[in-house]
């Protein structure tokens, strides 16, 4: 048992960090540090920087543009990316639909889509949830009816993150209404420019518009856009969700947030004393650090076990990572609320919001970094809900680990 990183791994970490330092724009870096969002343009530019370096899809098989890194290197890369912080490559492409395509897609699909995903030529969004199908995803109703060489799609998806930017959507659609609910679902790739698609934004409690409803009204989709076999889509979805959960602990993100909290708590004062010296606050922060260290070690256990794990089989421990990872991320948003105190109150719109120009007449209010704190607290309630809510994760633990 040796839990230290090897000299090679430490050198690799340094290489990654140096690359980020030399290649990420200062402006985008500052946005992330302040808790603001990177714009579509920022993410496209950054994805292309990573792609030129060959680092846009490190976890993919080498044949499709992966780096061939060990699980530990993958972990280090992700931790550095999140900790730097640098924008995360668009998960819907590189973590979700990409792996489904290279695992279950045909050669034409692989050749066409994979390079475009890596270069963020295509912005993908995820068409899974529906108004009546959240945790019970397999009950989804959006249907696709075969008509010659096309499918005709009707229905509605919701919570579609960043659909407003999207070129493509990967959808779970019902192709056999008579079958058992998991057995009548197919995985379809749909061009967002297709006639009959309407995107309607949903305003969230942070004031932002990152999620949308997507309506399909007699949308005609070429049958060639079916991934794998018809009615096998649920298997591909489970594979995709398993991949999603291995990255969901977001240890590097929480580490970066805790460092940020420590920095800001040194600037805020209670009376004459920096907040970081307040014993009550300091202990709350330390308690969050303990949780995070424990999560980090759990993540490393999963990473180390990856060598010996059956391919494509998600570790049930990923449910533990999801539950604690989300709780800790939320904890960091609460600590930041504590730090900013009264200047959590003023509502200042996100500068990335398309309405910024009309809303930005007001001068900034309070410290620079205060404006994002309450919105992030509001927004991050989502992290214990998405990707399989924490209650669903408990269900997975009860069934898959405990056999209850």
């Amino acid at each position, binding site marked *: *048992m*040796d*839990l230290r990183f090897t000299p090679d791994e430490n050198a690799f970490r340094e290489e990654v960090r140096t690359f980020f330092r030399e290649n990420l724009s200062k402006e985008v870096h500052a946005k992330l540090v302040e808790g603001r969002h990177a714009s579509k343009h920022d993410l496209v530019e950054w994805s292309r920087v990573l792609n030129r370096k060959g680092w846009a899809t490190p976890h993919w098989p080498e044949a499709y543009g992966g780096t061939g890194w060990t699980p530990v290197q993958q972990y280090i890369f992700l931790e550095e990316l999140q900790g730097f912080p640098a924008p995360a490559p668009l998960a819907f492409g590189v973590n979700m639909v990409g792996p489904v395509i290279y695992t279950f897609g045909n050669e034409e699909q692989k050749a066409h889509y994979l390079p475009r995903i890596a270069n963020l030529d295509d912005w993908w969004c995820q068409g899974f949830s529906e108004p009546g199908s959240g945790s019970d995803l397999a009950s989804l109703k959006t249907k696709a009816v075969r008509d010659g060489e096309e499918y005709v799609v009707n229905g509605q998806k919701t919570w579609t993150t960043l659909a407003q930017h999207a070129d493509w959507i990967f959808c779970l659609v019902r192709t056999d209404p008579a079958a058992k609910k998991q057995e009548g679902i197919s995985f379809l790739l749909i061009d967002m420019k297709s006639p009959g698609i309407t995107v309607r934004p949903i305003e969230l409690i942070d004031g932002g518009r990152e999620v949308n409803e997507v309506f399909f009204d007699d949308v005609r989709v070429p049958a060639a856009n079916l991934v794998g076999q018809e009615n096998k889509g649920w298997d591909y979805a489970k594979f995709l969700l398993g991949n999603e959960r291995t990255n969901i602990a977001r240890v590097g993100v929480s580490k970066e947030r805790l460092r940020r909290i420590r920095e800001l708590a040194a600037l805020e004062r209670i009376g004459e004393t920096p907040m970081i010296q307040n014993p009550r606050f300091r202990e709350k922060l*330390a308690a969050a650090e303990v949780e995070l260290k*424990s999560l980090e*070690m759990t993540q490393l256990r999963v990473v180390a076990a990856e060598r010996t794990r059956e391919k494509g089989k998600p570790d049930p421990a990923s449910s533990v990572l999801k539950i604690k990872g989300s709780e800790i991320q939320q904890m960091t948003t609460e600590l930041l609320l504590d730090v900013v105190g009264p200047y959590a109150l003023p509502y200042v719109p996100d500068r990335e919001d398309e309405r910024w120009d009309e809303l930005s007449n007001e001068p900034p209010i309070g410290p620079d970094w205060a404006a994002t704190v309450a919105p992030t607290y509001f927004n991050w309630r989502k992290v214990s809900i998405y990707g399989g809510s924490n209650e669903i994760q408990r*269900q997975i633990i009860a069934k898959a680990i*405990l056999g209850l």
Partner: protein
Amino acid sequence: MDFDFTDEQRLLKDSVDRFVADRYAFEARKAVLASEAGWSPAIWAQLAELGLLAVPFAEDEGGIGGGPTETMIVMEAFGRGLVVEPYLPTVVLAGGLLRHGGSDAQRAEHIPKIVEGRATMALAQVERGSRYDLHDVSTTAKRDGEGWVLSGEKGVVLHGEGADTLVVSARTAGGRRDRNGIGLFLVDGRAAGVSRSGYPTQDGMRAAEIGLENVRVGPDCVIGDPEGGLPILERVADEAIAAVAAETVGILAEMQAITVDYIKTRKQFGVAIGSFQALQHRAADMVVATEQVRSMAYYATMMSGSDDPAERAAAMSATKVQVGRSGRFVGQQAIQLHGGVGVTMEYRIGHYFKRMTMIEAFLGDADHHLARLADGGGLFKAA
């Protein structure tokens, strides 16, 4: 980065696991608890035979040269079996002080006796007013010619009554809470002036209140610098925290297994109560809490070998916070899910609960360590 055991470590694990499974059944343990000494010299002899008492000691001193990982393996198994023999006081605590601070002569005298099971030891450190502060020492050691004279009172000394030799922390200079001026003294448990009043502890172990009245010891009985014992004591306390974190893993894993088994078989309303979602989610939360402490036990095992005292202290405090939090959560849920039988002496689960609760208070509870961690600047420093 790997969490794998070596072949030797796997053999050790097999051996100690088998010992606990074969020789430490619940009923057998009950008989040991009911005996006068409260622990079994026969079992102690078996531990010696299996080489478990030799684990952390260097090979040229009769040990097997194991490190923190080997101790983790042993302690996790002992947690599962709720082993009451004085392994922690003798091998981990006193043995640790000898390893880190003992002279050649001291090690040559005491370590073979430990390894062969011929003698047990105890650490007399806690005082009535010291709570968890290792540096809060009122017991005095005064120069007496070449040697020393010890006077004072020590409390809650694990295995204090039965130990052949005590290691006593005593003040050689400075005021009650000074970090300097603390010495560590090897004292024969039967020496003139030593009075020992033993009692059972809540978790079925034994401890003692110990009086020292002008106890004379020779110059060869000081471990390390007579005024500089604290860093040795702190290092060993850190190793002991790693050890009880591993014990906690064993206890919690066992509590979880017993509880899940119980809710799968206990029927109410015509079905196994484990089919109810409220209970399933509680059980899932027990898994999460157990995995967290398992992770921290690995972390503590790795960090207990660190030579940087500040880094080590932060890691151990973080570990002890997690031990306290997970231990309390899993323990309470385990009792709750058992219902009434959970609070009976007849059933196993309550015994684990009691041991876990005592571990929470051993060498500092979660609040103590959270404050220590926070005061030290936390775990994640600037990158």
